[in-house]
């Protein structure tokens, strides 16, 4: 099978990236030391090729009402132009089809950003639902757009150095808000727990943008550090921490699911009918070793499983997200089965690190 490539493929190779097959995409996992890349983002600024993620525009009258029904989070929460909302999109049975971000631009236009591996099924699902509930909407996959995430305490300043014409429109953006600056759509969002922007721009401009950022001192960061950064920040990874077989309430996403209002949405009835028996918690390993996905967690209340685990460069210890019986409490001591050993771990409140600092 031929791997799909982003418009930055040649740039990654020129910058010395080690490339890997990431869900069918030929992507950089690291350029040099993955730990150095991680600290670069926590302490300064780094850039990520996220061109494999998909931008979808939903346009037409009634787009808000449609999203209110399509998504588990409530589109009515975003009323200021550019404001963004994180949400799960659920199956009628309550499993998570994908997690995504929607941006409210106008009452005729919401922009949606979805994961790479799920993009095709997401769009098919959106179109199928729109055909029934909002046949006049147009749902367009923006394959003409590229996306780069620039993250870190100095990230926004670096972007303004490279795109000074966008500064006026973006310097007053609050967290989770975007501005449409013509060719550049700039959002104060990200997947690292640091300040920064995600910039969507025409594909043919992205390579020059990437090199200009690099000249301004922004270092390229691979998927390896992207994973340690998002896990420290306590952000779920679709396909690992949740999927179509698991609901949002067992995936640490209760804060994004609105079950109290009158609003109906796809999956709501299933969530109300099936109260969760498990929940997602943070773990810190007390013994020596490294927590990894699929390791078994043993608690007095029953068994659980690690969904994502890694070594945290910020905390210099191993951390994980784990799905455990719902009565397990913060501060509990549990055991994790690693190879043939039972190692001690503690249940903690996550995120583990954000804005350059460890929180544990």
């Amino acid at each position: 099978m031929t791997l799909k490539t982003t418009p930055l493929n040649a740039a990654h190779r020129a910058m010395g990236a080690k490339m890997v097959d990431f869900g069918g995409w030929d992507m950089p996992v690291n350029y040099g030391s993955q730990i150095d890349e991680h600290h670069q983002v926590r302490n300064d600024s780094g850039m990520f090729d996220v061109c494999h993620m998909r931008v979808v525009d939903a346009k037409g009258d009634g787009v808000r009402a449609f999203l209110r029904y399509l998504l588990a989070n409530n589109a009515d929460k975003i009323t200021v132009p550019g404001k963004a909302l994180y949400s799960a999109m659920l199956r009628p049975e309550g499993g998570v089809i994908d997690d995504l971000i929607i941006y409210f631009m106008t009452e005729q236009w919401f922009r949606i950003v979805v994961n790479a591996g799920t993009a095709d099924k997401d769009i098919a699902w959106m179109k199928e639902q729109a055909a029934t509930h909002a046949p006049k909407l147009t749902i367009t996959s923006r394959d003409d757009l590229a996306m780069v995430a620039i993250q870190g305490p100095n990230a926004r300043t670096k972007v303004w150095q490279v795109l000074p014409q966008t500064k006026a429109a973006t310097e007053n953006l609050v967290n989770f808000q975007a501005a449409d600056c013509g060719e550049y759509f700039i959002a104060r969002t990200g997947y690292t727990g640091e300040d920064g922007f995600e910039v969507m721009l025409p594909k043919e401009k992205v390579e020059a943008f990437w090199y200009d950022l690099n000249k301004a001192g922004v270092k390229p960061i691979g998927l390896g550090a992207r994973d340690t950064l998002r896990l420290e920040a306590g952000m779920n990874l679709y396909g690992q921490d949740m999927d179509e077989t698991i609901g949002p309430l067992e995936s640490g996403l209760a804060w994004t699911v609105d079950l109290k209002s009158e609003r109906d949405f796809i999956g709501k009835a299933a969530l109300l009918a099936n109260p969760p028996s498990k929940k997602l918690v943070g773990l810190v390993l007390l013994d020596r070793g490294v927590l990894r996905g699929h390791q078994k967690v043993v608690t007095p209340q029953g068994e659980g499983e690690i969904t994502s685990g890694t070594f945290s460069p910020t905390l210099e210890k191993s951390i994980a997200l784990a799905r455990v019986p719902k009565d397990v409490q913060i501060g509990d001591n549990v055991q994790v089965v690693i190879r043939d050993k039972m190692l001690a771990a503690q249940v903690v409140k996550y995120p583990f690190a954000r804005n350059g600092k460890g929180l544990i």
Partner: protein
Amino acid sequence: MSNPTDLKYTASHEWVKTEADGSITIGITEHAQELLGDMVFVEAPAAGRKLNAGEECAVVESVKAAADVYAPVTGEVIAGNPDLENSPENINSDPYGAWLFKMKPDNAADVAALMDATAYQAHVDSEAH
């Protein structure tokens, strides 16, 4: 970086150095550390443990992944490297200096039969394709 010509190599990317007293010192190759990336955890076997050739006997973990290390030949463990417990990153900076464990092989001929640097490089190149 080329592989030292005075060492022997395994298909599973361990290097083996024969010492003056006939014991052997084992580590993982430059190629192996490059594939794994930043090392964060090492578990070496304890002295006295008897190993069969090809037996899993140590673990190295990078941020990205865990990898098993295999006994290159049959024999007994003399020592694990205690320094790596606190400085696993030495494997990245000095793969041919940061040894994992030492063994006394049952048969010196087993060591002599391992790949030399040229054969190992050919093996690495074949895996890349």
